[in-house]
């Protein structure tokens, strides 16, 4: 039981950190540019494909990861310059329609290039097995690769925190999220800032796609379900807030993971067996949405609203 709990807690942490990589870029695009980007999940998918392809070509996961993320960032740059730059000024309707069109194009293009079958992406050999470690006199096993992902996530989250909280660019970003007009009035090159944030967000979500590739199947449509989870994270955390994105990600990651693992067991203890087996999975799958609804009811602006 302890092994299960610890494993699930770590899984939740790992899932939460990956969600954070996705949500961080997205919340800034929403918050600073007031632009809704449905295609963020597609960038995640394309990132995963890039990493898979580069890994295959280079025969090294780490080189593949670097090249793939760089490639996705380049794609993000092109998209920003050609399309998104025009969308910031437009209404939400146009933004949704255009980014929805991007999803259609991305999914189909991936299908044309890599086929409809999922692409395999293997973790580096050295990390393929589990690690053994002892805690409170007990011995536990946990996949090494997942630990590396957790380390990556914590590292990136820390870096991002320093970037946003301690640097001048970070100050602009925070200023932009809380008051766009003011930022413009201060003479900051907003257009360049927008481009940088967008490209950075793309790189982060491609990184998440590449890191998760070995755990999940790299396939068409993988971006859409995760996009909505990133939305839930942002709704809970508050639009435009990096801190909110981090807290929201960890909440959603752990509640979802632990809920799926523990809720059915818990219900079996409380309810008759057949009722528990029907209700358990259903309840677990909507747990985070119920949580979102609950938080919204008390804090319609999310936990850490960036705008006063």
């Amino acid at each position, binding site marked *: 039981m302890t092994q299960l709990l610890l494993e699930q807690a770590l899984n939740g942490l790992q899932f939460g950190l990956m969600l954070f990589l996705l949500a961080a870029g997205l919340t800034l695009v929403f918050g600073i540019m007031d632009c809704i980007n449905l295609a963020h999940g597609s960038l995640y998918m394309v990132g995963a494909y890039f990493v898979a392809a580069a890994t295959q070509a280079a025969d090294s996961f780490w080189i593949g990861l670097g090249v793939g993320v760089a490639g996705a960032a380049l794609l993000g740059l092109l998209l920003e310059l050609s399309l998104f730059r025009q969308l910031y000024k437009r209404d939400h309707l146009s933004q949704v329609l255009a980014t929805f069109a991007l999803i*259609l194009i991305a999914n189909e293009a991936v299908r044309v290039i890599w086929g409809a079958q999922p692409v395999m992406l293997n973790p580096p050999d050295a990390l393929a097995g589990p690690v053994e470690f002892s805690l409170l006199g007990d011995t536990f096993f946990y996949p090494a690769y997942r630990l590396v992902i957790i380390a990556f996530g914590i590292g990136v989250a820390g870096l991002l925190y320093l970037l946003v909280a301690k640097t001048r660019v970070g100050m602009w970003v925070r200023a932009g999220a809380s008051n766009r007009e003011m930022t413009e009035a201060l003479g900051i090159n907003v257009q360049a800032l927008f481009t940088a944030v967008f490209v950075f967000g793309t790189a982060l979500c491609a990184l998440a796609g590449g890191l998760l590739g070995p755990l999940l199947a790299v396939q068409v449509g993988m971006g859409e379900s995760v996009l909505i989870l990133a939305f839930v994270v942002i709704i809970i955390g508050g639009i435009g807030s990096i801190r909110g994105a981090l807290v929201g990600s960890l909440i959603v990651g752990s509640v979802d993971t632990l809920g799926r693992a523990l809720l059915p067991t818990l219900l079996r203890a409380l309810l008759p067996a057949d009722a528990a087996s029907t209700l358990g999975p259903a309840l677990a799958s909507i747990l985070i949405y119920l949580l979102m609804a609950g938080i919204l009811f008390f804090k319609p602006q999310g936990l850490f609203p960036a705008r006063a």
Partner: protein
Amino acid sequence: MAFYRAAPYQQPVAIALVLILAALPFVLTAFGQEFYIGFATRVLIFALAASSLNLVLGFGGMFSLGHAAFFGIGAYAAAICQQAGVNEALIAFPLAMLAAGSFALAVGAISLRTRGVYFIMITLAFAQMAYYLFISARSLGGDDGLPLAGRMTLAGVPLTDDTSLYFAAFFGLTLAMLFFGRLADARFGRVIQAIRENETRMEALGYPVFTYRLVCFALGGALAGLAGALLANLTGLASPNLLVWTQSGTLLVMVIIGGVGYLYGGVVGALILLCLEEVLVGFTSHWHIVLGLILLGVVLFAPKGVAALFGKRHG
């Protein structure tokens, strides 16, 4: 955006359209093109679904990206009714509307407390919640969905052949559009459009803005539920795929192509998009790329929708 007002030629055009649509299955049969009756039924059903979204989005000014949930719930409600032994559409369809409308009421009650990007994301998230609920409900078929044993009856008439189902959809759409057109010109339509234009002003005139929005949202949900119940009869299946959020995106695309806030925006959009699909699929299996490019073109070059390209709004 201007307020809706019926154009002077609207009534004759509407009557002409009704006559043409009423004659369509017989014409198709006469030319041996019965296959297209099913396709035409699909167009009518999606026209109804898209119009219900247009009521919420175009008239109510609420940018919902979770409308497919109500559509899907309508389909499931019809299938569940049949399983429970209710095979009469006159009972099952209103129940489907009630189910979808009630869910819309609950979703609206929470999400209408928010605005802008927030509202878009929250409606999307709640729709996804409904999707997962149906997928994980084994008693409702899970991933596979809930099949209908056969088509229902409408006022005792079995909808088994395509022409009778076509007429069921035709009546549904006609009644809904009649209601929609009257509503737009009635007190309620005035109020929701004015709220879309300037909600603070309406609050300052003494209108409980939240309540009007919520009723409009729930009405849209109920009409989408009717469309879903019809679609379940057409395809013989209540599938969780109906609730997927990309389905909401498709409905949205229809409304935008057809013209947001135009009475017939949803109908025009559904017709254009489904015909486009039908034609493109004949050329390439990767028609989504073409569709995506067309949509990008619409956003960049015809931001007010196709209907706006052809005619001015009357107001």
